[in-house]
């Protein structure tokens, strides 16, 4: 042991993770299980189930590497956790990490033998990958704006954290028919409450001369090969009934969900098959049962102690505004309900972030955020809240240094792309890379500053499953293969008009667009929108008007859009355009290849 050591002068008053989600024993157990599996003492299926329950997916075409999904309940992540993710990503993964649409961090291409080391490293800073995959309750999400949103009724964060704490490792939900997702949101606008198994929006009512906290709860939504919008359980679910309701829904699903048919085992199919009213009745009856049979000790452990905010403004001088600052301000920063504070969104490319950038994020959380931590967002992005308005130019300069200052986070330029053929067994196309390409093109054309496009979204999945959430995009795509004679080429199905807010609806299938024509097709849609739009109309509202056959001028209906796009999507012969037959990120002709999905394990 060296007497001389690096003195770590980290302040004592820095925020530490309040909840320890990790368990070191699980890492040790995982290491043992890998050894047994390698020696043939555990069969492949049992091992896979165990592996998934602990948050490790197989990788594309190989089980020798894993994707470790790190749960971030309510998206809250602390500086030391970001630094640890950086270290783990460099040591065991590819030097970059990925922020998912469900607020997880994902570390890809980790040798199966090292997964336990990653789990150990996570547990040391209070993080876990437990139940991040497999047939379990996945990361409990909460809007990154919860607590600072101008439109929210109250901050749902304590409820999200308490729910996550109650459900993690709970014997009640260790072997569900399929995965199960909960999503707390701040308000109608910023959430995705209607596209998950249980979606919750804070609500208050006045009764008996008092104000009561509670939620609007939506059940049975979800995206996938067949997608559904959730149904509202009742007018108002009181805070006291919140946990009972969650338990009741999970119990009903556990008991009645389909365990036979892989393609029908999410709760939304159960809701669909029973019919909403019947399902609703069963849940309400179950809740009554839960209420009387559960011990009164079963309560959500809510931590509502008001937080003492950290440092105030760090800028004493009048800051100079770096180039690009106002564009970035416009598209990446939201004013909080608390006067003088802003929330800053970082534009990432398909959610990817280098280990050095993670370290910078840790510094930013410490230096600039009065709450001393960050949140993962819903859009493969990162959010720093509680930044003093006058510190924004300085923060922007810091982001510039590490390549994190791209504009566009809160605009159509923030394109979602699932991992696609970069790591997923099911993927048919490189949705991950194409999302990056679209974003680059949007920023190059400065489309992020166009207010008409601001509320529109582009989301891309590499297969008909919906990790890229394409159904709720204004312009959504999912990958497949097309054929021209003997030759195959990467091809996307495009849908238009998806929404996840109050008017949640799934996008309508429009047409097939070859991968290498996706960018021209999007630009063409914007072009016809611009020439056709009425005063004050945005791309999103224009598309809905056209869908409703209320079009004007040249574009009267959905079919007209198809007609106009037809010439854009024509497939050339391979002699005419070799590149057309090659997917993004490849140098050889496209061939659809998939492995076995791990959904069913």
């Amino acid at each position, binding site marked *: 042991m060296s007497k001389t050591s690096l003195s770590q002068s980290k302040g004592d008053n820095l925020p530490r993770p309040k909840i320890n989600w990790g368990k070191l024993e699980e890492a040790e157990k995982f290491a043992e299980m890998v050894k047994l599996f390698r020696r043939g003492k555990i069969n492949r299926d049992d091992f896979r189930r165990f592996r998934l329950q602990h948050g490790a997916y197989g990788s594309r075409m190989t089980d020798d590497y894993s994707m470790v999904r790190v749960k971030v309940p309510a998206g809250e992540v602390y500086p030391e956790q970001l630094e640890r993710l950086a270290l783990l990503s460099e*040591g065991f993964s590819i030097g970059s990490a990925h922020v998912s649409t469900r607020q997880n961090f994902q570390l890809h291409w980790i040798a199966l033998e090292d997964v336990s080391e990653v789990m150990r490293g996570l547990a040391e800073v209070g993080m876990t990958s437990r139940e991040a995959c497999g047939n379990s309750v996945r990361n409990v999400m909460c809007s990154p704006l919860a607590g600072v949103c101008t439109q929210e009724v109250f901050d749902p964060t304590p409820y999200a954290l308490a729910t996550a704490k109650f459900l993690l490792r709970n014997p009640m939900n260790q072997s569900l028919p399929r995965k199960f997702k909960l999503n707390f949101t701040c308000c109608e606008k910023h959430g995705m409450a209607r596209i998950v198994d249980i979606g919750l929006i804070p609500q208050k009512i006045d009764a008996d001369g008092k104000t009561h906290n509670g939620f609007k709860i939506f059940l049975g939504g979800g995206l996938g090969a067949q997608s559904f919008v959730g149904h509202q359980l009742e007018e108002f679910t009181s805070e006291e009934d919140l946990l009972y309701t969650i338990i009741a829904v999970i119990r009903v699903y556990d008991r009645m969900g389909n365990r036979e048919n892989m393609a029908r085992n999410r709760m939304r199919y159960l809701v669909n098959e029973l019919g909403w009213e019947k399902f609703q009745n069963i849940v309400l009856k179950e809740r009554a049962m839960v209420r009387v049979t559960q011990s009164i000790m079963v309560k959500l452990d809510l931590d509502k102690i008001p937080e003492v905010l950290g440092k105030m403004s760090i800028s004493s001088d009048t800051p100079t505004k770096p180039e690009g600052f106002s564009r970035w301000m416009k598209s990446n920063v939201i004013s909080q309900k608390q006067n003088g504070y802003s929330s800053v969104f970082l534009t990432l490319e398909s959610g990817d972030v280098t280990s050095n950038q993670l370290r910078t994020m840790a510094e930013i959380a410490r230096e600039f955020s009065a709450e001393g931590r960050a949140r993962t967002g819903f859009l493969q992005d990162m959010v720093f809240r509680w930044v003093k308005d006058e510190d924004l130019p300085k923060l922007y300069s810091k982001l510039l240094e590490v390549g994190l200052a791209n504009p566009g986070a809160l605009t159509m330029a923030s394109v979602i792309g699932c991992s696609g053929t970069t790591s997923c067994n099911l993927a048919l196309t490189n949705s*991950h*890379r194409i999302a990056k390409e679209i974003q680059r093109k949007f920023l190059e054309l400065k489309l992020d500053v166009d207010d008409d496009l601001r509320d529109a979204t582009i989301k891309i999945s590499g297969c008909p499953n919906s990790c890229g959430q394409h159904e709720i995009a204004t312009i959504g795509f999912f990958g497949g293969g097309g054929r021209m004679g003997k030759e195959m080429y990467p091809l996307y199905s495009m849908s238009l008009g998806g929404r996840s807010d109050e008017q949640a609806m799934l996008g309508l299938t429009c047409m097939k667009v070859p991968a290498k024509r996706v960018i021209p097709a999007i630009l063409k849609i914007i072009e016809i929108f611009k020439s056709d739009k009425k005063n004050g109309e945005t791309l999103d509202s224009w598309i809905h008007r056209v869908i409703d056959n209320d079009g004007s001028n040249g574009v009267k209906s959905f079919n007209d859009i198809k007609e106009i796009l037809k010439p854009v999507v024509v497939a050339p012969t391979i002699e005419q355009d070799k590149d057309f037959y090659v997917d993004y990120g490849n140098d050889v002709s496209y061939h659809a290849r998939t492995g076995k999905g791990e959904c069913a394990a």
Partner: protein
Amino acid sequence: MCCLSKEKIMRPTIDVDALRSEIRDKSVRVLDIRKEEDYKQSHIPDAVNLPLANLLADDSPEKVLQYAQSFGISDETPVVVYDDTFGALASRVAWTLQYIGHEDVSLLDITYGTWKKMGLETSTEKTSFDKKNHSLKLRPEILATVDYLGPAKEKGAILIDNRERLNFLENHIPGAMNIPYRMLASPDNILRPKEELKRLIQNRNIAPDAEVITYCGSVGTLSGLGYYALKSIGMENVKLYVRSFKEWKSLEKPIERQNDANYWDLSAE
């Protein structure tokens, strides 16, 4: 007086306190293998400069012997090597000295950057020492050549590729196992504590007495660190394939890769 065993206890790494006391005793030769201009700006007191590029320009045993002698290194002189590149470059030099038969070589367990951050003493003086005699006793048992790899693998030797994961996925020597060099370090030291390294090796089911050959991309630096990581946990039978993948590729030997996945597109670099 009790007679001390003549046999030296090999110490692959040395910590700051031990090195500082040996520098005070003038019982050690310290090699700084950074570039000459970096060395000139400041270095560990009494260190001599052997830029890695100079060594790589000609790393024939005769030339290395000449260097050692010119630095006043005799067969008995303990040598400590350091760099500012997470220990990989220092490892390559240390290994080369061992290969020509010098027994007592260690890596400083931190980089020069960390040394400075700790506020330890530095010097700008160029140091020189009287020439000493050193014998030449090549140690082929720590070197793997391209011709050695095939038969060794057949006998069960384990091949470890110390390049980063993405490079490994893209191409590697068939049958190799990947331990990226970054995995070997801890945040403060060029190598993790022994118990951690042992665990990483056990997780991979590598027996302590296995024959292991490390290699990397071109000149045996990253894999030099891999070599010392294994030595530090007491593995005896470790070799460095010093010409590494660069030679393997140039000889058009078979290559294995992870097919049908666009893993590079996950990188945010």
